[in-house]
């Protein structure tokens, strides 16, 4: 036992001791999530016949698309070192409100969809303002928002599923471009959202402010950045993406269900962090989120493609693989994140 421990320790030490000049080794280490993804792909490709078929690859993309829209906003939030616990409930509210307006009140599109997304965005704005102006941690404001949005969903739906959705929502969620074998609209929407997020984070002044504030709020303030405004805008963006994801999810399921998006909160945070974005803020990117999403999707889909695995074990295996992937991420990519308290 002790000898394995020392072997691992010396291996890690060796990797850390790599000379600075070995750019390739460092690049290799920095891309740890990408190697995890490649390893999973290789494994499932060998273990299952159907996995690498184009139709299945398209399935993976379709399966992670809703998650991707959630994750776009969440990436902003985590980069800022904040958290949004309300996204799943806010998404449900957006969908339920849209469906209720369209079905029960007979209001034509685009008003129901716009109202759903608008309310979600407004809730994000409120969390942001409450946290920025009154210095309440986003953990608390968004927890409250989870209850508020969840409560409104219950009130509007009375616990019932609305099984009729507008054509617009259905097109966004389950339409295809180019016939039945074509590209799902939902994938295009997800890609557009991720790309937009990437451009904002990477190429705009606001994006830089997000990184600065997340990495070192004091330094950002000293450089004249209005960190309160950055927080408010980021929480608003996350509200918007949650609302949008709610509508998309409704279109995909052809119904608005009070609890359809429940699992998305943990999945979203998991996927973003898996990509290598730090919960402490300042480190990460939208591209890393894309990798995290693909790891998540590959894992979920791959396990479904291996018929010999006990269906009741899948969640357990997912958890174990996630933990391993996170460990690999920190050992390789997080070389600077060693405990430096002493």
């Amino acid at each position, binding site marked *: 036992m002790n000898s394995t421990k020392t072997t691992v320790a010396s291996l890690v030490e060796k990797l850390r001791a790599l000379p600075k000049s070995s750019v390739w080794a460092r690049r290799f280490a920095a891309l740890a999530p990408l190697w995890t993804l490649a390893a999973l792909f290789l494994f499932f490709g060998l273990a299952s016949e159907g996995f690498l078929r184009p139709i299945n690859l398209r399935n993976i993309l379709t399966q992670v698309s809703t998650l991707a829209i959630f994750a776009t906003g969440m990436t902003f939030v985590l980069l800022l070192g904040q958290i949004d616990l309300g996204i799943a409930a806010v998404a449900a509210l957006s969908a339920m409100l849209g469906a209720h307006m369209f079905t029960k009140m007979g209001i034509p599109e685009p008003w129901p969809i716009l109202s759903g997304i608008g309310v979600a965005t407004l809730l994000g704005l409120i969390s942001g303002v409450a946290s920025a102006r009154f210095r309440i941690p986003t953990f608390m404001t968004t927890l409250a928002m989870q209850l508020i949005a969840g409560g409104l969903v219950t009130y509007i739906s009375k616990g019932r599923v609305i099984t009729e959705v507008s054509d617009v929502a259905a097109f966004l969620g389950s339409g295809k471009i180019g016939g039945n074998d074509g590209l799902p609209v939902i994938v295009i929407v997800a890609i557009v959202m991720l790309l937009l997020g990437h451009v904002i984070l990477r190429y705009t002044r606001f994006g830089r*402010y997000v990184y600065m504030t997340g990495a070192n709020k004091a330094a950002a303030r000293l450089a004249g950045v209005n960190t309160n405004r950055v927080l408010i805008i980021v929480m608003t963006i996350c509200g918007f993406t949650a609302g949008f994801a709610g509508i998309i999810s409704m279109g995909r399921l052809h119904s608005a269900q009070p609890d359809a998006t429940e699992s998305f909160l943990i999945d979203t945070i998991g996927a973003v962090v898996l990509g290598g974005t730090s919960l402490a803020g300042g480190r990460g990117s939208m591209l890393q989120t894309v990798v995290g999403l693909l790891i998540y999707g590959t894992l979920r889909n791959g396990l479904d493609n291996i018929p010999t695995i006990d269906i009741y074990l899948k969640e357990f295996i997912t958890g174990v693989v996630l933990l391993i992937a996170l460990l690999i991420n920190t050992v390789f990519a997080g070389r600077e994140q060693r405990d430096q308290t002493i």
Partner: protein
Amino acid sequence: MDVNKQPILELKNISKNFRSIQALQHVDFDLVEGEVHALVGENGAGKSTLMRILAGIYTEYEGSYYLDGKEIQFHSPHDALEHGIGMIHQELSVIPELSVAENLFLGRQPVTRWGIIDWRSMEQVAQKELHSLGFDIDVTMPLERFSLGTQQVIEVFRAILSGARVLVMDEPTSALSPAEVKQLIELVKTLKSQGRSIIYISHFLEEVVQVADRTTVLRNGVSVGTLDSQEATVDRLIGLMLGREITRSTHPEEIGSEYQETLLEIKDLNADVFSDINLNVKRGEILGLYGPIGAGHFDLARALFGLYKFDSGSIILDGKTFPHGHSARYAIENGLAYATESRRKSLLLDDAIYRNITMPHLSKIGTLAPQRAKELAAAVPAIQQVNVNPPDPLNPVGKLSGGNQQKVAIARWLTFPPKVFIMSEPTRGMDVGAKSEVLGLLRKFRDEGYGVIVASSEPETILAVCDRIVVMSRGRIVSRLENKNLDKDALMRLI
């Protein structure tokens, strides 16, 4: 010191590399009982590395470590403490929210036989121990109620209470006011008279000369000499540290300022921590705000820059009155620059130098989207102007030495020059070489016609660069002086 005494601790032929950098080369060091042995050297000379080996933080090195004549190898700081070697860190490791007594017993609180913390005996012991060393404070109060100096003292006591015979003190006074420094030095002397052995690491050579029985000087990872207390003078130590004879320039150069125009005017400024502040800064002068920590001068600097709320009064820069409650952005756009006392707070250590420099100016460099090429073009001249070493703009700031980090914090304001430059504690924690470079930069700004405000609690810094000095104490201005024929004593007596 009795030279015939056996050393209780001895390091022989210690070497340590970090990747390709040789941090220590064949260093010998020893400590006898009841001695204060100081360790000095410029930043990067290897002091911290040696100290970390002493305290069991670095466990891999070449050479041997003897304790009480027996060779020993520590596996952790905890292990070292078990053997009686206690470390007092530069940054306090006490927990401000807990009571004094609890801090003293952190991690080894006495328990009753029911396994419940025995508060009564803990507080009694704490009170008694502190009393025996001449400190009478209420140990049930949370530590944060006490001054930084007292907190530092508690940190020392904690190491002693956990059984340390050897105390390793790393820059124990760097954040203390002069009065607190005196208190700490007295404490060190008391501890010595009780037979404890102390390794004292400090940038403040005057303290070292006062307190040390022997002083070992490190330069570039090599021990270049150990001086007895009779031999050790500040000048000799500096000479050894730098490896050359130094020409002293602690006296400010006489200046006949050609500018007399008032640039910044502060009228009746009031806030919770300062009151009735009236000041002006002229073009081409360096104004010093001197006071002990807590005098309000650092908060005044922050208030000018829009980071600290003031209640009343006005700030007029170059004829323009700032609106009440102005933001830092407003201050920047109207010609103020500010570098704080904490580089950790003002820089993004993981980020490249050039990005740290362009941080406040992104709106000028690219309205919507800053471009790397433009940013580099803006940053590189500034980097050259302050002589950052190494000058690679893509290097992360965290890899630079403290002095070079400070240069980056200054260079940030040169791309779009301000009218008045405010600096808090511009040379804190820096070695001699870096200090004189930074002070040289401040003089250069003055000569180029900027106004400069230096807020500091270090009289040396103030005396070295300022043309006029405003002395603050407890939030008020107590004295205004021309910096002519002033010395440290005179300044410190005014507080």
